[in-house]
């Protein structure tokens, strides 16, 4: 049984999804989804523990040996990201019980949980697999499930947001497919480890370089790397709160992981340095941080503000990849983990506000901080983490990013990282000012604190923020091992 953990992580939610869809209405679909998500989180934890103590896992699907069969190859990077995805799913589901009852029509709730489990399957599948075409399959599974989930939002813009995301996401995935096809045509293999052995001989061919470019652009779109981020603000704003929490904390992180795999494992060391890829990552990262943070300041809708903030945080991760050094990749991986915690907590708190007053515009949430102190506390600590105040998880990732930039003597990047934090102070400050220092608006007259079932997951993530800001054994330790596994390009 323990040998099959890698496969169980994908198969269990996959089989549970249609079962949940046909369960009768009531709490049963939620209960089964919660059990499955918790089981996945436990399995992911066991997998990470096994990796750290016993080394990489290579699991052959169906007994077919690689490179002809599909191989699930797990090392420190995979296991880390799989743990993030599964843990976020496990902590989002208790939150989902009440939140979906308010926001999603009752007859659609079993289908909602079914789609959530399919999205979880897709995301876990991307992290587990060691075959680049399998990545495409799971990428599309998770994307299609997310389009369906986003379209369940209450406002009619949910449909147009889901449609826009669908068109852009499918173009991105098809670009990835073109890249995989071109690489396959020159190497004859789809297995990542095998490609790492074959590619050095064919790197000079234009086909392989073109394939690399297509794959980069395709994944950059899924990543919401500036300027390919246009789908993200609408998708996060108009989706139901639970969906925003889940997608904001997992979908872009998994795309960052795919990017790291392609750049460092599949393509041999130093190849990306010969292309403009590393400079483009730095440029796109810098542009994303500045532009998205400035956009965030001017937003009237709090969810949209946090969505633009997510685009900026992805810019930080892209900077770390662009540095291509051990500290840079470590910083990206740490920020992957911490951003999931930060944004998860913030979107959960906003979802609690939506639960109470049904709206989340700046003028409607005035003064609610005093009526909902726990929710407000979560927003404050999550916001401080976003800024990077010492004592919170965000500080750790900003620290490593600045150290990586200083190592490369990239002074502009250092300035941009710090400027990004200052801009974050502005938009987080806007949020806090509206919630606490303004008089209560009409929408929030008779509001009480959010129910405990919404507050507990939120504060679970907030405490995780504080804990991982002080005890970094798990995050930094695993991230450094993962960066070593990836084998970075610049010393």
């Amino acid at each position: 049984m323990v040998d099959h953990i890698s496969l169980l992580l994908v198969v269990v939610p996959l089989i549970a999804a249609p079962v949940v869809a046909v369960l009768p209405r009531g709490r049963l679909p939620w209960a089964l989804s919660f059990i499955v998500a918790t089981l996945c989180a436990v399995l992911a934890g066991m997998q990470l523990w096994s990796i750290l103590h016993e080394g990489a896992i290579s699991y052959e699907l169906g007994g077919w040996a690689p490179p002809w069969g599909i191989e699930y190859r797990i090392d420190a990077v995979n296991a880390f990201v799989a743990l993030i995805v599964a843990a976020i799913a496990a902590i989002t589901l208790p939150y989902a019980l009440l939140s979906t009852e308010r926001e999603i029509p009752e007859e659609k709730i079993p289908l909602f949980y079914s789609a959530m489990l399919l999205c979880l399957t897709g995301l876990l599948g991307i992290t587990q697999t060691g075959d680049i075409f399998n990545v495409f399959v799971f990428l599309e599974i998770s994307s299609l499930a997310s389009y369906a989930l986003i379209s369940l939002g209450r406002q009619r813009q949910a449909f147009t947001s889901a449609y826009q995301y669908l068109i852009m996401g499918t173009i991105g995935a098809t670009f990835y497919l073109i890249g995989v096809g071109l690489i396959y045509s020159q190497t004859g293999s789809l297995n990542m480890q095998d490609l790492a052995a074959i590619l050095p001989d064919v790197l000079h061919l234009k086909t392989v370089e073109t394939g690399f470019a297509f794959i980069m652009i395709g994944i950059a779109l899924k990543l919401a790397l500036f300027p390919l981020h246009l789908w993200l603000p609408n998708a996060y704003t108009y989706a139901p709160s639970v969906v925003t929490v889940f997608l904001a904390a997992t979908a872009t992180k998994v795309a960052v992981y795919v990017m790291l795999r392609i750049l460092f494992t599949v393509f041999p060391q130093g190849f990306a340095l010969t292309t403009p890829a590393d400079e483009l990552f730095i440029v796109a990262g810098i542009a994303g941080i500045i532009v998205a943070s400035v956009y965030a300041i001017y937003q009237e809708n709090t969810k949209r503000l946090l969505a633009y903030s997510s685009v900026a945080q992805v810019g930080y991760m892209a900077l770390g990849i662009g540095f291509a050094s051990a500290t840079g990749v470590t910083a990206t991986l740490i920020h992957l983990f911490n951003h999931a915690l930060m944004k998860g907590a913030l979107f959960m708190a906003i979802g609690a506000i939506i639960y109470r007053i049904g709206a989340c515009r700046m003028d409607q949430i005035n003064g609610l901080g005093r009526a909902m102190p726990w929710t407000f506390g979560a927003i404050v600590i999550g916001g401080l983490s976003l800024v990077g105040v010492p004592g919170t998880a965000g500080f750790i990732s900003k620290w490593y990013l600045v150290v990586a930039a200083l190592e490369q003597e990239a002074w502009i990047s250092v300035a941009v990282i710090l400027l990004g934090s200052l801009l974050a102070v502005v938009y987080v400050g806007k949020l806090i000012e509206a919630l606490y220092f303004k008089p209560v608006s009409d929408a929030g007259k008779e509001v009480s604190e959010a129910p405990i079932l919404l507050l507990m997951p939120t504060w679970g993530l907030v405490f995780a923020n504080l804990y991982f800001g002080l005890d970094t054994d798990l995050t930094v330790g695993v991230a450094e091992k993962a960066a070593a596994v990836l084998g970075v390009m610049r010393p």
Partner: protein
Amino acid sequence: MDFFVGHYNYWIVIFLMMVGLYTVISRGNLIKKIIGLNIFQVSVFFLYISLGNVEGGAAPIITEGVEIYSNPLPHVLILTAIVVSVATTALALALVIRIKESYGTIEEDEIHNLDHSL
């Protein structure tokens, strides 16, 4: 001349890819965008399958007396990709139906005038 005639499959792929992408970008009707997306995806299928063809090879079905087969793996990959494409089209069409019900139109500029959402 061989540049054009010898590589005619790539020219077809490029033509379809550009037609598909241009349709997605330039057409305002939501259904036409979906059609453009489909044409774009079909071009990728052609790319894979034409790359998988082995000169002098027969169809990749085991038959007696045949020694060279075309590569079956691209066919399998494209079957998966076709399924993904069909599922995406179905989801997109369902979304367009709901958009039509809520907005009363499926033209992108009219929706933008109503809502600034597209």
